[in-house]
């Protein structure tokens, strides 16, 4: 065989393999969307139907017969709160770790890394008792703080990386011009790291939005998130297509973000060890 033919043949094999792998991995997502448009008698057909008459009744039922919309409002509130707070705190801490001369800086970075390793299942109960004692159990604010400490160790690390890439001369020049350290950070450094801020905010949003364990535990029927509302429908056979409609709504914005910020997401979740 000529070398050129051989290259072409491997290319075709690669193509086929990639398409096959993608089909297998994407089918469940496709199936979620498709079944959200199925009426109940179509969904439970054996074998499964791939061609059918789509209906919007699942979405209608979801909105009218469950508390999904209220859950969505709660989930947006919590995720927005976490994203804003976490981005601010991460860049503050990241700046100190990237720039300032601190004794035991290594240990501070290590401390945040260690809190990342605390398994949530192990601390959930004392956390529950603590939130109850201080009156934050079931409130949006309580859930925001719980989400926050789980995400912060990752994003502080990430923010530090972005800030360390900005030349030191810039804040030093600003400070010679009479800016305070905080003003230099606020007016010069932050505007320079817009891209980094966007990445940190998006990763925070994804992690906060996809959080389930704490939302199941630390909410009341008034503050429960949409995700926890859907999980609460488990065990009811009638709920399948309703939940698929709800799941499609919850998942779509995150899929869109992940599609475009794929590299940054991977870099962020590996503490910047992977170069984007």
């Amino acid at each position, binding site marked *: 065989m000529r070398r050129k033919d051989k290259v072409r043949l491997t290319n075709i094999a690669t193509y086929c393999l*990639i398409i096959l*792998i*993608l089909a297998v*991995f*994407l*089918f*469940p997502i496709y*199936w*979620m969307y498709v079944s959200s448009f199925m009426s109940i008698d179509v969904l439970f057909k*054996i*074998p499964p139907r791939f061609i059918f008459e789509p209906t919007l009744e699942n979405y209608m039922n979801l909105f009218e017969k469950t508390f999904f919309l209220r859950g969505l409002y709660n989930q947006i509130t919590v995720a927005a709160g976490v994203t804003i707070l976490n981005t*601010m*705190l*991460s860049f503050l*801490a990241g700046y*100190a*770790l990237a720039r*300032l*001369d*601190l*004794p035991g800086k290594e240990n*501070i970075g290590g401390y*945040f*890394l260690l809190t990342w*390793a*605390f*398994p*949530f*299942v*192990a*601390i959930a*109960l*004392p956390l529950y008792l*603590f939130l109850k004692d201080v009156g934050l159990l079931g409130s949006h604010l309580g859930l925001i*703080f719980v989400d926050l*400490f789980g995400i*912060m160790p990752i994003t502080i690390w990430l923010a530090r990386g972005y800030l360390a890439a900005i030349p030191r001369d810039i804040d030093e020049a600003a400070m010679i011009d009479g800016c305070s*350290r*905080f003003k230099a950070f606020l007016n010069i450094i932050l505007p320079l790291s817009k891209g980094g801020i966007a990445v940190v905010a998006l990763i925070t949003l994804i992690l906060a*939005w996809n959080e*389930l*364990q704490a939302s199941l535990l630390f909410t009341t029927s008034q503050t429960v998130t949409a995700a*926890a509302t*859907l*999980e609460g429908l488990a065990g009811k056979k009638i709920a*399948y297509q309703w*939940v*698929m409609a709800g*799941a499609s709504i919850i*998942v779509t914005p995150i899929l869109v973000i*992940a*599609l475009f910020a*794929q*590299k940054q*997401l*991977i*870099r962020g979740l*590996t*503490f910047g060890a*992977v170069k984007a």
Partner: protein
Amino acid sequence: MRRQTKIGFLFLLPSFLVTLIFDLYPTVFGIYYAFRSYTLTTPWLGQQFVGLDNFERAMYDPIIINGFYLSFIYILMIIAIQIPAGIFTASLFNQQVKGQAIFRSLFILPFAVAPVATAWIWRLIMNPSFGALNYFVGLIGIPPQSWLSSPEQALLSLILVDCWQWIPFTTLVFLAGLQSLPVEPFEQAEIDGATAWKKFRHITLPMMMPLITIVVLIRIIWIFGHADVPIALTRGGPGFSTYFFSIAIWFEAFRYWHVGYSLALGWLLLLICIAVVNLLVPFIVRGLE
């Protein structure tokens, strides 16, 4: 104290306070209960100091021993599958073919699916009577399986779900690693006439070791800390066939409200996680330098 140091601590203060109040304080405080017999459903029995009883009980509790064993098997199989699978798919996505950028982006999608959706999607697909999975395995001549509802298959089904969600992650981490490999050693090996396998074994693999270790670390910590998808899919069952250590802690806490016992178990898990971090992180740091 130097002015810069003072400012530095002020910058760190808010995030430090959040972890201190909401993470460290409840964790450390939890050990108070670990030495006590305290059940929230029977508060009139009070909180008696029982010394190491809760820890001793864990050593002999068949559910806990079984949970340890299951968690160990689960993590081991997940790592044994997802690392090689990730490297394989990554090298596939590293080939220069048209449309590769789109393929890579699409492959992240399962990883971004929220756990509640993951649980419901697979509940539907793996349903023994009308699920699509039995239809697909039927196409290649395999009779219908019961998946999550069979004690023999539940663990494997959970591993399958986890692989669906996390192989995209391992793949994209390793892909980034492959893309940043230096060219020179490969050119030299080419001149020396090394086979593809030799190049992979002696150049690619050693250079990827830090990334592989990071992925192993992230997976172990994540699986120990997150029981959401397994709990949603099997609730530890059928029987105790998927009753992982983390699920046992969760149910001791939020089903039986055994505060003392659950926190003793939680502290055991915490120590395991800290040990894993201390074991693997130096290895990663050394590898990246």
